[in-house]
């Protein structure tokens, strides 16, 4: 016998449906709570087009009655759901398996398995549900005796090689008429008549079992969930036969693996010929296998993280990203959504523009959006400022706080903070009583800018944009300025700072002048105070306290789209901008090099009176009061001492930048206002 091959079985592989975890979590929270009682649960397997010896678990696994149907068979087991990860880790797995094995032997010897053969397909499930993180640790065991080894007697044969078509056809009908409890394991004679286990075998007088049985013409049948070698369930069937039918010990027997395919065919069914061992009468089945292997083939516990479907916050995040992913897959395969997701945006101003920009940022999948604003929500705000409600005004909430809270209400996975801070401004002297507070505010602003990737300057005054412009340039951040006139708007990306060295030359295109990203100007370079700037458009620079109400939404949208275009450009902040040198040729605009999302202008000036945009690009002004080397060096050398000099007198900027015609900002307040000004 020893030269014969050991007969091998295919191990069960568990397939858990999502609703199994839902039900387990629900039971844990509502019924068991802190109890660790063993629960009876069930699994199912099929022999219809079966592959891989699978066993299924879903929410019906917790039902007291097994839901089976034609070709669907039950397996019975015990769930041990533990309270802590430590007890899951430390419990004795071998002894659990042995207990389950001993229970199986008991069920065989006391006749349970004859009455209900499904008990032979037994399992154990050890689990720990971490319901805070929606992690389910679990491990299935399918007990089988390691001691009982059988051998192949001769090669297997297909059912059609042994039986007539007529017998096979009738066999199908006979199986169909059985309860699946019985059709899981049964016996058939040479013409494939069905004999139930309980009718052929007794658990009481085992010595007389199958005494007048012709082993060569009878078949021990089982419904097989495996497609090639026999499935795991056979192993316990053999154990039953060994224990209850001593006459079979040392004998060769026929096994019929019943496998269904479409069109009610049994053609995949096979007959296996095996030889049972004969151990001493006092032989004990003591060692048991087996814990399930994970999908890497290692026998170890598994973990299922269900947070994406069980955690509503993650679900919301997923669906917020879905349209972006579809856009990427369908239109823009090279679209980099990760860079968008990871950018930290800091908005100076939580007024009409700030709200609109935050909204658009969210729709693009930006997940880190914070606000700096010192104002309160007023009654005039909610109709125009899309993050606020009447209740916010009634409660007189801080705008920055209310805006951040609202973003979290819209999408809880967003990171958003509101900071109540006044931005110090040139020409607005700091007195002794506010000095300490201002120092702290400046430190906070500096730290927040350092920690950000993108700054949006959307405050309601021009002077308040000076400090963030300087700091944005100094720390090399992307800065987008947005400003509104009555029916016009300006959106501008500030040039990259000197630290972004750019040696290579941009491509020359006739009719176009190219300005590399690190030579582009800032909001203040184009200032009224900049001499020789002939393209300046006066409309925006008029003092306007009112704007056409929807113009801010347009400007906010363009600001975000400009940022996204810039982020998708390979040179990022250093992306060049182009402008037309002469007006003769009108087609050159079309030859501006495009990136994935089209051209990336330096600035967009739009006019609602004609519903048109122009795209000016201007170079950095060497004497700019906010981004020139004079100013940046001064800040580098003297830090807050310099800043305070400027706060106390804007003329100090004129001095250090050698601007002789610098107009004092106190005298010439030029508002490019967010229409926030309607509140004050």
């Amino acid at each position, binding site marked *: 016998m020893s030269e014969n091959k*050991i007969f*091998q*079985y*295919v191990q069960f*592989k*568990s*397939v*858990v*449906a*999502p609703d199994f*975890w839902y039900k387990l979590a629900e039971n844990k929270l509502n019924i068991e709570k802190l109890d660790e009682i063993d629960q009876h649960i069930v699994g199912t397997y099929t022999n*219809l087009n079966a*592959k*891989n010896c*699978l066993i299924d678990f879903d929410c019906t696994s917790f039902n007291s009655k097994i839901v089976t149907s034609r070709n669907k068979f039950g397996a019975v087991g015990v769930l041990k759901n533990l309270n802590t990860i430590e007890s899951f*880790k430390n419990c004795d*797995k*071998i002894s659990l398996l042995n207990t389950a094995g001993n229970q199986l032997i008991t069920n065989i010897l006391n006749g349970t398995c004859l009455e209900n053969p499904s008990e032979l397909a037994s399992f154990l499930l050890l689990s720990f549900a971490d319901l805070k993180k929606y992690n389910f*640790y*679990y491990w299935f065991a399918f007990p*089988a005796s*390691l001691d*009982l*080894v*059988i051998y192949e007697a001769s090669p297997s044969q297909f059912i059609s090689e042994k039986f007539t078509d007529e017998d096979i056809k009738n066999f199908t009908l006979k199986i169909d008429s059985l309860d699946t409890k019985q059709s899981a394991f049964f016996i058939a004679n040479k013409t494939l008549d069905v004999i139930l286990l309980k009718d052929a075998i007794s658990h009481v007088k085992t010595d007389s079992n199958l005494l007048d049985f012709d082993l060569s013409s009878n078949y021990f049948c089982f419904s097989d969930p495996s497609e090639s*070698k026999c499935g795991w369930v056979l*192993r316990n069937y053999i154990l039953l036969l060994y224990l209850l039918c001593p006459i079979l010990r040392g004998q060769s027997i026929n096994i019929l693996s019943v496998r*269904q*395919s*479409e*069109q*009610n*065919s049994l053609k995949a069914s096979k007959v296996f010929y095996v030889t049972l061992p004969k151990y001493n009468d006092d032989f004990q089945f003591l060692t048991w*296998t*087996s*814990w399930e*292997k*994970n*999908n*890497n*083939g*290692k*026998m*170890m*516990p*598994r*973990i*299922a*993280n*269900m947070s*994406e*479907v069980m955690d509503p916050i993650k*679900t919301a995040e*997923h*669906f917020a990203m*879905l349209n972006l*992913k*579809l856009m990427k*897959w*369908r239109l823009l395969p090279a679209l980099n959504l990760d860079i968008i997701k990871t950018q930290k945006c800091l908005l100076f101003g939580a007024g009409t523009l700030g709200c609109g920009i935050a909204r658009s940022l969210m729709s693009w999948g930006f997940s880190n959006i914070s606000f700096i604003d010192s104002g309160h929500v007023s009654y005039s705000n909610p109709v125009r400022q899309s993050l606020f409600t009447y209740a916010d005004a009634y409660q007189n909430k801080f705008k920055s706080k209310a805006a951040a809270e609202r973003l979290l209400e819209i999408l809880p996975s967003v990171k958003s903070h509101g900071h109540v801070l006044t931005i110090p401004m040139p020409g607005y002297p700091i007195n002794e009583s506010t000095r300490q507070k201002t120092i702290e505010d400046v430190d906070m602003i500096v730290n927040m800018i350092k920690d950000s990737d993108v700054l949006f300057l959307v405050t309601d005054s021009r002077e308040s944009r000076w400090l963030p412009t300087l700091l944005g340039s100094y720390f090399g951040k992307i800065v987008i300025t947005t400003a509104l006139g009555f029916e016009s708007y300006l959106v501008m990306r500030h040039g990259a700072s000197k630290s972004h060295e750019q040696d290579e030359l941009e491509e020359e295109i006739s009719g176009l002048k190219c300005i590399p990203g690190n030579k582009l100007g800032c909001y203040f370079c184009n200032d009224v105070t900049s001499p020789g700037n002939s393209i300046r458009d006066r409309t925006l620079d008029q003092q306007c306290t009112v704007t056409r109400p929807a113009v801010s939404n347009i400007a906010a949208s363009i600001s975000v789209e400009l940022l996204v275009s810039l982020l998708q450009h390979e040179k990022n902040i250093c992306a060049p901008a182009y402008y037309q040198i002469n007006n003769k040729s009108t087609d050159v605009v079309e030859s501006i090099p495009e990136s994935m999302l089209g051209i990336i202008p330096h600035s967009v000036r739009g006019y609602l009176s004609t519903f048109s945009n122009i795209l000016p690009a201007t170079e950095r002004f060497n004497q700019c009061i906010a981004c020139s080397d004079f100013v940046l060096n001064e800040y580098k050398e003297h830090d807050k001492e310099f800043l305070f000099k400027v706060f106390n007198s804007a003329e100090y900027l004129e001095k250090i930048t050698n601007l002789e015609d610098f107009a004092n900002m106190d005298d010439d307040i030029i508002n490019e206002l967010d229409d926030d000004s309607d509140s004050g």
Partner: protein
Amino acid sequence: MISLNFNENDFNEKAKEFREISEKLNDTWELNEKMGKIYLVKKQKISIQNKKEQEVEFGEIVIDDASAVNSIPETIYSIEYHVVFHPSYQVPVLYFNAHSDDGRFVNFDDVSKIFVEDYELKQYKDEIYQIISQADHPILFKPFYMIHPCHIHEVLSKFPESKNFILTFLTIYGPSVRLKMLEGYEKFYMEKEVMANI
């Protein structure tokens, strides 16, 4: 003849017919009903090799078991297909969901990976994400993947001789998501026709 203006009643009738043929063929389509709406359901499992599983850091046991087949590790995906008559597009629409054997739903980025082999993946991805979306199931109100219905009516109208537009629909759209129709369905209608002509 297919009516180019089929309605929900036509769908219900054809779905029941389809389900009956499925039963005869021992195929596994089921007809589900919720709040008076019916839809067809089929479940299928596929196995994929070489998907590395994220492991826990503890508890490995080694048992030497000569009686166990040393199987190649595989991940099993369970896919559930639904054919639903779409209330606004007025055509049958194929919805599906998939989960791996540990119970996790297959996420949007990975859904293409369960339908084709790695070497086909790039091209398949380009194609499948043109037509796939994720949306609420119109009867169950739970998120499902769907094959977008915008051209279905046009495509179906090219088969005026179709005996069952659901079968025609599934024959055309099923294969892109590994849903193959048994030959028996076509045969069933062919034999029926032969019988009618005798």
